[in-house]
């Protein structure tokens, strides 16, 4: 079914129609047992109408012109039902026509994926008998979208990402389970990741060594500490600590960042950007060339050398703030309305060497792995730490038990005194904000002062 302008509802200030297909393939294995081996597909149409300051939306899975017109009518009626609350409002202009579809390598068959996971499981059993359990997962996720709107946009875009998830578990000296995970992930399908058994074995070996260290882990010392945040953690810091408070809908709802444009919010070593699709001439894991409002996606410099510069916007918030929309509006499934979402959120690398950064810490921690995090309108953030080490007199010491770090982002980022010269980008996570969303995040290692939980 091709979209065309005749399918759009009329007599509204703004209307859009999005066709959206999502395919998700999941293969999970625990100790050689296949727990899940499924392919799930959804597809449908989403119609959205803006009228007198209110939005109406309707979605349905049937890809026909008749259905497009039907949901367009429902969306219009829904917008009108809220008119008593709304007031005349404009939406920011600007539209784009483009198509961005990627070439892929031939896909792995289900049998190849199963054999691959079995091979990893066999290695885990043979080489690492101390492991209590090994969980593995292969995930492929593919979004295809086509959009038209009454501002004459017409876009066809896609995003695909995949990952191999390694999660071994061991027992510590008290016979309690301790676990770690690592993810090999990237843009495209599994075949595009260039996964080799050699690469996987290296990661498994490293996880095993870390787990052995964790069997002797000590509690962290609670309080404000000098830390090196590894590059695997900086991404989530960027996303949670300052990324969310720079989403314009949260800014307008009360985030403290609303009055800080032009003010210092970080050390001058920190520059943070939400990239639309490309960094250093390389296509990033979640390339967004146009968003789900038909706006050409632009990079958003949120922080430049420590100064807060701007926010991520959709058409509505851009108009309210008097700026151009940035192409950050995305919906996760066909039934979801577009919300302001991050895309590829990075803190840019600096010039310091990581070994030198560690050597400069007298008494603190090197934090290497995190599982998840949360943000707040006050810019207070937290994220869980799954792997970290003591640093004493510039030397790495004992592993620390699972803990949490937190702080006020603005205070913590102003405490950054060194930024390493290389960057790690990961696309394995989901952002949760009413709907989940595929995002990527990354950064270099940072030296900073941060609150850590412990004894």
């Amino acid at each position, binding site marked *: 079914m091709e979209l065309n302008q005749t399918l759009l509802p009329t007599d509204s200030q703004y209307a859009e129609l999005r066709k959206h297909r999502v395919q998700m393939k999941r293969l999970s294995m*625990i*100790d050689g*047992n*296949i727990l*899940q*081996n*499924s392919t*799930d*597909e*959804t*597809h449908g149409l989403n119609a959205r109408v803006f009228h007198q300051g*209110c*939005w*109406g*939306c309707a*979605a*349905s*899975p049937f890809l026909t012109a008749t259905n497009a017109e039907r*949901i367009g009518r*429902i969306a219009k009626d*829904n917008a009108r*039902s*809220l008119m008593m*609350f*709304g007031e005349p409002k404009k939406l920011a202009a600007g539209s784009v026509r483009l198509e961005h579809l990627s070439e892929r390598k031939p896909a792995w*068959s289900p*049998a190849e994926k199963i054999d691959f996971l079995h091979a990893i499981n066999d290695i885990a059993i043979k080489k690492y008998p101390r492991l209590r359990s090994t*969980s593995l997962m292969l995930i492929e996720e593919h979004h295809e979208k086509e959009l038209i709107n009454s501002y004459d946009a017409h876009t066809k875009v896609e995003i695909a990402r995949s990952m191999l998830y390694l999660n071994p*578990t061991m027992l*510590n000296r008290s016979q*309690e*389970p*301790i*676990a770690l995970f690592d993810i090999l992930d990237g843009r495209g399908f599994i075949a595009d990741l260039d996964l080799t058994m050699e690469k996987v074995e290296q990661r498994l070996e490293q996880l095993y060594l870390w787990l052995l260290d964790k069997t002797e882990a000590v509690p962290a010392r*609670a*309080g404000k500490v000098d830390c090196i945040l590894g590059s695997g953690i900086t991404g989530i810091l960027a996303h949670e600590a300052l990324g969310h408070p720079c989403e314009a*809908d949260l800014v307008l*709802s*009360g*985030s403290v960042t609303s*009055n800080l444009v032009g003010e210092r919010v970080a050390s001058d070593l920190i520059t943070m950007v939400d990239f639309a699709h490309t960094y250093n001439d390389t296509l990033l894991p979640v390339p967004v060339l146009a968003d789900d409002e038909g706006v050409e996606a632009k990079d958003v410099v949120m922080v430049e050398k420590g100064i807060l510069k701007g926010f991520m916007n959709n058409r509505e918030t851009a108009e309210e703030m008097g700026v151009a929309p940035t192409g950050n509006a995305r919906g996760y499934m066909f*039934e979801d*309305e577009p919300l302001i979402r991050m895309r590829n959120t990075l803190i840019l690398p600096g010039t310091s060497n990581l070994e030198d950064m560690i050597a400069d810490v007298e008494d603190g921690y090197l934090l290497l792995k995190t*599982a998840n995090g949360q943000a*707040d*309108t*006050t810019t*207070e953030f937290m994220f*869980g730490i*799954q792997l970290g080490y003591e640093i004493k007199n510039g030397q790495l010491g004992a592993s620390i*038990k*699972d*803990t*949490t770090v*937190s*702080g006020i982002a603005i205070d913590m980022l102003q405490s950054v005194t060194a930024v390493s010269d290389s960057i790690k980008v990961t696309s394995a996570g989901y952002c949760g904000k009413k709907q989940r969303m595929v995002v990527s995040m990354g950064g270099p290692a940072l030296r900073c002062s941060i*609150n850590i*939980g*412990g*004894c």
Partner: protein
Amino acid sequence: MQEELHKIAREAFQCLMQAGFDDAQVVAKMEDCNELEVVNNKPSLFRTTSLPKLQLKGIVDHRKATTGLPFIGLQRLKTVAEDLFLQAKSTPQDEAVFVSEEQEHTFSQGPKEADKSLMVERIQELFAFRESETPSTNISQGGLQHKHRQSVLLSSRGSHLSADHGWYETILMAVGKRGDQTSSLNYSFGSMFSISNPLVESFGFRALLEEAPKQIQTVKVPEPFTGSVLMTPGAALTFISFLDKQLRGKALLSKTSLFMEQLGQAVASPLFNVFHHATAPGHAPHSSDGYMIEDFPILRDGTLLALLADRYISRKCHITHRPSGDCFSVQNGSLRKNDLLSNIERGALVGRLSMGSPGANGDFSGVIKNSFLVEKGRRGDALSETMISGNVAQMLKDIDGISVEQIDFGAYSTPFIRIPNLVFS
């Protein structure tokens, strides 16, 4: 729609059997939703969606494959079934794979149609309350939804389950705001069969709106100390989440559950009682793998009475099969929450716990949000940048007080719970 779902399920089932499967299971479902969303103190979106889903499972020679897809025509369904058969043939054998057996039940509950004008009225009422009673609180996000879900399950081993139920869900996220200053975001949520009562009287919404401005000015704890927490019903959901993960699925299969070998043993304080409920708004009494579920106790007087092993886990791990859903309650106690508070020498009243998942052994540390310092039994200043650390499994054992007061969130119900011996920093 039920007849249509039966037809779709029968057609899909026949396609699977004709493709060559020994056993097959099909679930056909449709979910209609009407949602009124609010952003920044006003309604911003009204959304109407219809989501059909067909879930196919086929087993041949103890080899299983599954797929989920929207409703498609019969010809495409035949092709999908044939592809699924080939996929199953390339999957290793597993004696534990199964389809639902001999389950026969029809379930109907709740309002099947959204009362859209009443939904708009309830939201108007909520905003009127905010404006007149709590003008220093911003409703940053929220929503009121009506959902209607219908489903049919058929299996080759004689199962036929059908469900047709409707309910409402709501969520409220709010901050206190005064000039440039803002409090931490707080939220509450719930599900219900009726919206005949004002929303502000449900799920702790009134307290959430009234308390938010009191959390704008905050203090930090001056130095680390060991003390007690009184967890509000919202914060106490942490325990349900922890138990849910420990008692089922991956934790059992990988033998990393802390409780796997502890059936019949004391794993929590004798004050702590947890129950599983078969139904609640939004929940039919059918497990996701196609079995009838019942009400039963999980913990009684702190003793573990049940592991939540689904059919696959029960066959794989030789544990009693205990079909379950997602509805739990913590039984309330006998003390008033103010009495629980008055016996805290030093600690905090915790509105929300922001933390990563506890470690596999239960170790955790997290930021306490929307919380207040408690000293010598009196509630003091709101707290920020304050963490607590401990072990969730140990916390269950250390519980020393449970309130009479509780909040029924629909699928969950929790009281105030007091726990000593946590490290604050």
